[in-house]
């Protein structure tokens, strides 16, 4: 704040009296995030409240999340393993796990754009760091993810035999997979890195969407395309089999898709697939670039959000 007073221009001392506008400062952007994180009880409470609220009128309560995921996974798994002639013992867990992680990504993207708009009332009535609402959304999505993981555990129990067999394949002539082992624990840091990425996505898209209300629609319409472009109900094996060793640009369709790398962080360890360090590097790179972008937007427009919502 007093930085300007250290260089007083001779004739301008009167003008220098004018207070320095500090609403666009890195300090306040970082302070917002720091204060938001320390208000853990607030955002975790709000996140839980969302879950309880959403399923209050259903008999099953939050278990409804689990149920609907179970039905979807079963349906998709049965259908696509037949379509691709894949062994159901490995292909159904593949689709299920992929779909669970996808739901988390999808939720953060679509509800992220909605974060501040949805919290308009609170933002205008009770002063709080913006990051509280980011964490509320992220926490809600994490709780839903945890509920969906029940299905993963069930699938794991049912198909334990096929998944732990070293050298199993997802689809005919596919790459032999190492099979489930202790390396499954890498899913935990994988999920954390995914959540770090979700953080900047919610912050960035949340702020921009309060100003431009058509962004959520754009995201919603693109997300369906992304679902089919990302290997969730199909595998990279199929791509390889179909086009041979030199899949060329077709390979790029997968490799250039950031969602694929984020997905693999969590899916590959959970079902004992071959893990690759390059998913980690790319995901960390996305997190870095994304957070820089989000912080720049945060610095410049943080104080405008309460005017825009």
């Amino acid at each position, binding site marked *: 704040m007093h930085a300007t007073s250290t260089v007083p221009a001779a004739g301008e001392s009167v003008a220098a009296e*004018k*207070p*320095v*506008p*500090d*609403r666009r400062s890195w300090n306040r952007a970082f302070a917002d995030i720091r204060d938001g994180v320390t*208000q853990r*009880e*607030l955002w975790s*409470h*709000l996140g839980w*409240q969302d879950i309880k*609220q959403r399923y*209050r009128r259903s008999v099953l309560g939050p278990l409804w999340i689990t149920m609907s995921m179970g039905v979807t996974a079963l349906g998709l798994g049965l259908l696509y393993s037949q379509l691709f002639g894949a062994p159901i013992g490995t292909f159904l867990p593949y689709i299920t796990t992929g779909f669970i992680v996808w739901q988390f990504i999808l939720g953060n993207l679509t509800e992220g754009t909605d974060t501040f708009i949805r919290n308009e*009332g*609170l*933002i*205008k*009535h*009770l*002063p*709080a760091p913006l990051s509280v609402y980011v964490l509320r959304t992220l926490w809600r999505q994490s709780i839903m993810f945890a509920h969906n993981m029940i299905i993963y555990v069930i699938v794991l129990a049912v198909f334990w035999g096929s998944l732990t067999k070293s050298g199993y394949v997802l689809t005919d002539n596919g790459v032999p997979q190492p099979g489930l082992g202790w390396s499954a624990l890498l899913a935990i840091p994988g999920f954390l890195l995914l959540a770090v990425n979700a953080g900047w996505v919610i912050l960035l898209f949340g702020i921009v969407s309060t*100003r*431009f*209300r*058509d*962004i959520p629609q*754009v995201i919603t319409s693109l997300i369906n395309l992304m679902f089919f472009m990302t290997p969730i109900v199909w595998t990279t094996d199929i791509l390889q089999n179909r086009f041979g060793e030199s899949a060329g640009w077709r390979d790029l369709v997968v490799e250039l898709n950031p969602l694929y790398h984020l997905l693999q962080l969590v899916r590959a360890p959970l079902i004992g697939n071959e893990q690759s360090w390059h998913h980690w590097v790319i995901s960390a790179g996305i997190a870095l670039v994304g957070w820089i972008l989000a912080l720049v937007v945060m610095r410049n427009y943080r*104080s405008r959000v*309460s*005017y*825009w919502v």
Partner: protein
Amino acid sequence: MTSIEVRNAYVDFPIFDAKSRSLKKKVLGKVGGRIGTESKVPVIEALHDITLSVRSGDRVGLVGHNGAGKSTLLRLLSGIYEPTRGTALIDGRVAPVFDLGVGMDQEISGYENIMVRGLYLGMTRKQMEKRVDDIAEFTELGDYLSMPLRTYSTGMRVRLALGVVTSIDPEILLLDEGIGAVDARFLNKARDRLVDLVKRSGLLVFASHQDDLLLELCTSAVWMDEGRMKMHGSLREVLKAYKGKDPYENISPQTAARLGVEKPVSASKGGE
């Protein structure tokens, strides 16, 4: 030290329409070469050049007509709106009670609302769990506390919000005129707690149209008019200028008695 320091602050609300809200329209509008018609987003200047310093122990009343900028000023003082130009430095824990028709999730229960408000004011869950019975009793809402907020009248919401802020020790208490929505009996009860709270808490800014409440809770006042501070001085002077008559002229004898110090004042009034 608890204080609020506002210097040359302006608050301009951008007024968006469907067109200025759309990124597509903005991008295409420029590409299409219709730059001439691409006008700037209009703004409403809700606050104009506000300079105000409130320190610990100050109890400021806000008066002014509807739309004068009282609620906006309170939001500026709470940090919800940061000034578009100028600065506002807020030092202390803020507890606001703003217009309560909207804001909270309408589906959550009264109990939930107490908890959420408490957490916003910097309490922990444990601290709030200890207070919740006390607050529930104070609000006299009984079984309603388990009902969703959408079933509450404005006055009932005010009871909740007042119950929460008066059960903790906020440093900066900001009250909007909405708190006048509760019935007279409850207001009496709340007033005692507020007076007590104001003595303990750092500072109070209170927007109201009710002279007796202002006289009881505030010592100085700001008169807002069309977004500007028209007058800033002792409560009595400001009310006199704003209403065109001495505020003590027509307060009830009970209020006068409660305020205590008013005896000599009402006597001098008779002489005018």
